[in-house]
């Protein structure tokens, strides 16, 4: 039975949610509102006055080939980050779930990357793949592969994807492991008796029963790939080479803080917000309906 505490009156509940509301207001609603407001203006080069342009910033952006390219980059980047981090995490979780001895150690070790700040993780990966002194670059060189993510856009993308996904594996792993362990053993055993081998069981029983977890992680990881990977990209490639790793959130920074085009930057923030909002709604509408059983 659901247990509910009923508060009388209005003031106590308001007081209780006030801190959360305040934080949301100060750090989300206020800046978001400001972004929407600013996106309607173009400031003069010295920032002394602003000229109202209506949807001019948006029109300009949507016809800008660089901005459109950034959309594609973001789509590729976030798809890859989500797939790689969730795929590897699921694989590791399945292995850990089968372990009986030593699973504690294994789990602890796998959680460590989560404690590393994205920017620091970015630096670590950058050093390993450094074109002159990187360890991995050297090994790749021994194998006859000439790694240079500073010049090669595909390699740059590969590197930021790996670095971003790596930090995320721990988080996904924990959720997948918890999800796996909440599947009753007897259900798996019943399937084994019914004749299903490991893969068939995984495909027809385990994965469907894991789908609420998978869905949750999908939403969280896409949001992560859209926003929180900024640190990794900034430290490793700074959006380059030739904008090949400039995802939307990085472009907001590059155009606004570096390029000082505040109107366009604000408009980009608004678009980004809408895109993520729309994606989440879509996921809830179409994917979530399938995951409940």
């Amino acid at each position, binding site marked *: 039975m659901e247990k509910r505490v009923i508060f009388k009156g209005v003031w106590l509940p308001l007081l209780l949610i006030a801190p959360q509301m305040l934080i949301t207001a100060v750090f989300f609603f206020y800046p978001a509102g400001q972004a929407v407001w600013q996106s309607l203006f173009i400031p003069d080069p010295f920032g002394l006055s602003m000229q109202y342009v209506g949807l001019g910033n948006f029109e300009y952006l949507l016809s800008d080939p660089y901005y459109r390219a950034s959309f594609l980059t973001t789509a590729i980047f976030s798809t890859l980050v989500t797939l790689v981090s969730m795929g590897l995490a699921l694989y590791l979780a399945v292995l850990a779930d089968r372990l009986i001895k030593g699973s504690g150690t294994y789990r602890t070790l796998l959680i460590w990357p989560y404690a590393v700040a994205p920017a620091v993780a970015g630096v670590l990966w950058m050093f390993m793949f450094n074109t002159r002194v990187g360890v991995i670059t050297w090994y790749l060189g021994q194998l006859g592969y000439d790694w240079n993510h500073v010049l090669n856009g595909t390699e740059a993308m590969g590197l930021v994807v790996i670095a971003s996904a790596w930090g995320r594996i721990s988080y996904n792993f924990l959720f997948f492991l918890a999800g796996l362990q909440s599947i009753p053993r007897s259900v798996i055993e*019943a399937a*084994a*008796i019914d004749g299903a081998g490991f893969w068939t069981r995984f495909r027809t029983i385990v994965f469907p029963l894991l789908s609420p977890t998978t869905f949750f992680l999908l939403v969280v990881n896409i949001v992560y790939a859209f926003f929180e990977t900024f640190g990794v990209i900034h430290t490793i490639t700074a959006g380059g080479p030739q904008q090949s790793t400039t995802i939307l959130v990085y472009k907001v920074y590059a155009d606004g803080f570096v390029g000082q085009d505040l109107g366009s930057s604000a408009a980009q923030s608004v678009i980004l917000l809408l895109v993520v909002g729309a994606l989440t709604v879509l996921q809830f509408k179409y994917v979530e309906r399938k995951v409940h059983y």
Partner: protein
Amino acid sequence: MATLTLEHVKKSFGETKVIHGVDIDVAEGEFIVIVGPSGCGKSTLLRMVAGLEGVSEGEIRIGGDRVNEKEPMARDIAMVFQNYALYPHMSVAENMGYGLKIAKTPKPEIATRVQEAAKLLQLEPYLKRRPRELSGGQRQRVAMGRAIVRRPAVFLFDEPLSNLDAKLRVQMRLEIKQLQRKLGVTALYVTHDQVEAMTLADRMIVMNAGVADQIGAPLDVYADPETAFVAGFIGSPPTNFLPASRFGGTEGEQLGIRPEHLSLVAPGEGRIAGRVISVEPLGAETLVHLRLEDGTDVTVRQEGGAEAPGEGMEAGLSWESAAEMRFDAEGRRMRGT
């Protein structure tokens, strides 16, 4: 349909020995119930037959073939779990047809067989529902259906009724028995409920701490227990035990007498005396609990109509010597003499 044989089967988990060597021969179509207290290794034994646990020592044969090394799916068995273990994301029909689907049975045949089983189990109206939309008894039937549909050689049941309420348990017990008779499938059924064991079994196996104390038809086991444990476990209320030293036995030996074999006589008469501590009138019968001078509690079962003494009254106890069961200090039955 097949025979099932366990030969010197042992099981240890690391250092812990759980099954100490069990031998059973199950005939085709026989209903065997394994009964014993919690933790005695009933489930472990069943899971070894299913192939969910490895066999440490000994041999298991189904239909004459050694199956020790075979995967569960290759053993031609079906199992009904205590918590039913239904697939929560599949409909009732999909649950029942899952095994056939994996075996790549043609769709029309799956549909027919599921339909047949559903009819047998009165599940037809629920075929499209998910398990969580069913009552406990209906889930239980689906679990049975999943087992039936595959037409296995052996049915395994691990306390399938323990999650049901008392009334439903009695009803399902009858259904399981009828179903097994109708299908003629060999069945191995685990329970800790001795009433279930008595009513279902062709033969029952009484397990005690990893050992099969006795194997036999329920009434034979009841009338002629091999060990003090069996005498105490089978029958309700349980057998009374008295120290045999008071009746010409040696120290450590025990005398077992079933409650229905004791009768109350006037104080000072009979073979032993006690004080009534409580009386339970159950209608058809009345249970009288007494405490003897040495502190032992005994229970007497009387016809419901017979006059019972009041609480706190003194009474004498008598019994026929033929009803005595003597057990040695290790709890083994002593015959003759």
